[in-house]
């Protein structure tokens, strides 16, 4: 049995309240969404470190990911066949269901030194694209960084651009490491821009940046 601390309990409770709160609304996606939770956890809060939590995932990103699974562009084990068996309506419904759930940070301890190293990797190589709401806030709280702001982020992925940014903060470290490894070994494709960033990253950097994203506890989109 999995020991559940008070903190986790409280978070789960809040998550449950949010699942309930989500229900009286049109039931879009309830059926396809809840049946995914057998693997992804109640309300999309995964208890398994190799399966991602989906709670709070960006609705558009969810659809993009499922389409990539369906076409095989993104490699997978069970997700490809599932995405091919589901209709577009199902997938949109699931996207809405998960977007409604409150994201919760993963609960495994992460090494603070690794997180610190990962934050540097984030600033150096990831931050112009991977700016979900809370990371956007983080970099603007960083005075040193503010001073050197080139404005580049605003040109590309700033909130004003309305680009689709996946929520990866607070995700399980093991899952993030597995996906980063897939990018690295070429089994999961990536944009030219991401590939350029990867050229500068070694395995230690990837482990660190996975720890950094996993350590995020503020998860607003």
């Amino acid at each position, binding site marked *: *049995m*999995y020991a*559940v601390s008070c903190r986790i*309990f409280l978070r*789960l*409770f809040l998550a*449950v309240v949010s*699942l*309930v709160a989500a*229900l009286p609304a049109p*039931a879009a996606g*309830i*059926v*396809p969404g*809840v*049946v*995914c*939770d*057998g*693997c*992804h*956890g*109640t309300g999309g809060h*995964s*208890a*398994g*470190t*190799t*399966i991602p939590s989906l709670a709070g995932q960006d609705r558009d990103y969810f659809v993009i990911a499922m389409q990539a699974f369906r076409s095989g562009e993104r490699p997978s*084990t*069970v*997700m*490809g*066949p*599932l995405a*091919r*068996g*589901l209709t577009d309506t*199902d997938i949109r419904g699931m996207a809405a269901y998960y977007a409604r759930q409150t994201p919760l940070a993963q609960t495994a301890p992460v090494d603070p030194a690794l997180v610190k190293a990962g934050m540097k990797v984030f600033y150096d190589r990831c931050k112009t694209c991977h700016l979900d709401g809370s990371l956007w806030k983080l970099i603007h709280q960083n005075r040193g960084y503010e001073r050197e702001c080139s404005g580049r982020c605003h040109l590309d992925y700033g909130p004003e651009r309305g680009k689709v940014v996946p929520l990866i903060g607070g995700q399980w470290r*093991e899952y993030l490491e*597995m996906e980063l490894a897939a990018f690295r070994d070429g089994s999961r494709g990536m944009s030219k821009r991401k590939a350029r960033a990867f050229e500068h990253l070694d395995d230690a950097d990837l482990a660190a940046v996975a720890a950094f994203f996993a350590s995020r506890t503020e998860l607003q989109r």
Partner: protein
Amino acid sequence: MKAAGRRAFLRMLGAGAGLTGLALAGCATPEILPKSGRRVVVVGGGFGGAIAAKYLRLFDPTLEVILIERNRRYVACPFSNQVITGLRDFEGLTLGYDALASRYGVRLLFDEVTAIDPATTTVVTRSGRVRYDRLVLAPGIDFRTELIDGYDPRTTPELMPHAWQAGPQTLLLKRQLEAMPDGGRVLISVPAAPYRCPPGPYERACLIAAWLRRHKPRAKVIVLDANPDITAMGALFREAWKTRHAGMIEYLPATRVSGVDTAAGAFVVEGVESVRGDVLNLIPPQRAGAIAARADLVEEGGHWCPVDPRSFESTRHPGVHVIGDAAIAGAMPKSGYAANAQAKVCALNVLALMNGKPPHELDGINVCYAAIGEDEDISIAQVFRVADGRIVAAPVPGGASPANLSRGRLEHRYAESWLRNILAEMSG
């Protein structure tokens, strides 16, 4: 848990919880838990019932939900084949029901259901009668041991464990394997389909073979299958047997065990041939959990419960819904994941029916992993829908692992999380 004996195990299960009151017949029994508002009673707290109870409350917190289950602790079957060969113990597979009560407000009654009367919407337990507006029944399976000559339901499983309801039976099979001499023969009998967990017996053959190679390399596994061929993920298991377990597993299709010869330690095949073994894992043919037949929910001449494919309402008795292994769910396999998915769709449709709303469509999903060795798994993933009144699989090619098993290690990592999540769904 590994060290704990059978007695401790039983104590842990809280067996006997329902054995206090005397079994009283129908109307003479007092009503317990008098009904005040809208109420759904769920019978059976396994993969189907626990999830139905939880999601009924999640979907409608004003509804009273009572879960009646005979045991205080639930021991999950998935991955219990790994317990047999010491790769895992029962601790992580054993669940309590506290969270269902404290977090979701499900009322728990640990008791044995002895009868169901759809006409008076009443469930009879050993301690009294419980009324319902709608009933969800998820009793799992029982064995059709009458199909096996010489099988004594009390003593035979102690000699020839089925280990198909996880718990003491699993540990008995483990002990027998450990005690077996090198060079011994492990027989696994696979019942005619449909049965619980189609890939389960073949997974078990893989895991036992892997263990034997390490500990008793001259021993062998013989699979006697009542079915004409491997019933699930056949090509993948064959590949695993060829490449991972060469020389360790002998597969005999269309070989039905029709009797036992306990004195000789042998299975009797089709009434004629006798096959001797040192460990005899006899998985008998199956039927819906006994209470389903007692409640007249089983189809004429059959052994499982016919249901509407969306609401899972019995086609024999309105107001009673049957989910999980006990139900006839078309193309959906008798798996824990399928029971979990059915429970959620059923819960929504129970509420829809109670509130006079149109039913939700079924979008069933099944994802199952099967171990092919100590650190490799294969999987199958399918989507199900209703067509012409039947549950069918969406016609998608490639729902199973690649034929060359190249993803075995990766799938093993996913399998572990699958287990954690599906169990966490039931207990948290």
